[in-house]
């Protein structure tokens, strides 16, 4: 049931005539659901603005939320959802802020005396308009949260793949967690760039923190090693625990002539012996 132009106009008047009572009632309702996590004054200000938004949309005879007249209101709702999402409120708490406008309007209609059938029909149409607005906040809220998650995933990807200089001429990549294609790509790029930047002839890939080495993980590591070799660096794989070693054997993965060690310390010792020999 969409709002007719007449109904929209009538409600624009209601929202205008009862604005103070409406905003007070509305703010009290919202404040009760948010339990004091936003100050009363702040809510009062938000609701007053939203009321204005609704009033203007309806005065512009908006029949639903997608129309031209509701552009401003949509922007307000999107901003409200975004702030609430960032402040850590739930979707329900955000949507209830909008839903409770219905209660406020009903209370305003009640004060006018008798509520007849015509007013009720109007109210139902208006109510579906508010529902639409509340659903819109749901959508915006989810979108903002998804953006936050995507940002964090990106940050995590950056954080979780450091390349550290272990010794003069030796860089190490301590891998922690699941090595999927996206991360393997980041690891390879970082490692190759660090090899160029530091001019290191040795790289140690430490897989102590990788919970399971399956064929995909092994393939990613092998490709990284081959790429590093093409650039003239020697790669050592360290951190191969007993259970990982047995699994790799059962799977039939062969690391060929790539040096592998059980711990990072062993790998470093191995590299130092190698360089020591060469120096002499």
């Amino acid at each position, binding site marked *: 049931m969409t709002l007719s132009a007449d109904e929209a106009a009538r409600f624009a008047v209601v929202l205008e005539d009862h604005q103070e009572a409406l905003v007070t009632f509305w703010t009290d309702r919202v404040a009760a659901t948010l339990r004091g996590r936003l100050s009363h004054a702040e809510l009062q200000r938000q609701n007053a603005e939203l009321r204005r938004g609704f009033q203007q949309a309806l005065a512009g005879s908006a029949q639903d939320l997608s129309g031209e007249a509701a552009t401003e209101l949509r922007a307000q709702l999107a901003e409200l959802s975004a702030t609430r999402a960032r402040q850590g409120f739930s979707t329900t708490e955000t949507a209830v802020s909008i839903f409770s406008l219905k209660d406020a309007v009903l209370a305003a209609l009640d004060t006018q005396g008798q509520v007849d059938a015509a007013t009720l029909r109007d109210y139902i149409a208006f109510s579906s308009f508010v529902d639409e607005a509340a659903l819109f906040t749901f959508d915006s809220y989810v979108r903002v949260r998804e953006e936050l998650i995507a940002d964090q995933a990106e940050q995590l990807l950056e954080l979780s793949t450091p390349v550290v200089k272990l010794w003069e001429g030796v860089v190490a990549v301590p891998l922690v967690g*699941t090595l*999927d*294609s996206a991360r393997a790509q980041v690891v390879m790029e970082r490692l190759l760039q660090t090899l160029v930047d530091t001019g290191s002839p040795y790289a140690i890939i430490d897989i102590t923190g990788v*919970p*399971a*080495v*399956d*064929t*995909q993980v*092994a*393939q990613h590591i092998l490709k990284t090693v081959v790429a590093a070799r093409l650039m003239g660096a020697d790669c050592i794989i360290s951190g191969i625990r*007993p*259970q*990982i070693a*047995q*699994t790799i054997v*059962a*799977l*039939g*993965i062969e690391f060929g002539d790539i040096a592998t060690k059980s711990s990072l310390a062993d790998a470093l010792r191995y590299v130092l012996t190698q360089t020591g020999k060469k120096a002499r």
Partner: protein
Amino acid sequence: MNEPGRRIEVASDQDVVRVRQQVRTLAVAVKLSLVDQTKIVTAASELARNTLVYGGGGWVEVAPADNGRRKGIRIVFSDHGPGIADLDLAFTDGYTTGGGLGLGLSGARRLVDEFDIVTAVGEGTTITVTKWCR
């Protein structure tokens, strides 16, 4: 004597990670040794990825198993993909149609105690694996 398991839809790389976590949790719960935990988790990872990559997605069911003498873990991987035309070839080490190492299917069979495969061209593939506590 098998309890119902938990079914996980496999439609993306994240789902393969979820399968792996679920298998690890259950493997710890039925007290598999650390080596066997790693083996079954790795096998599950291989087969779940096959379900995704070659089967075009499907589902995985992870359940505790009990044959009266021993406890273990049973995992079913099922898809409605193209099926496998030549099983002998598919189980050949190093054979791949997807650019991998060609060790996933054959390797997974070596990592588990029981391995059962039902496949038909054009209908899909269902693989059931079991790992028992030693």
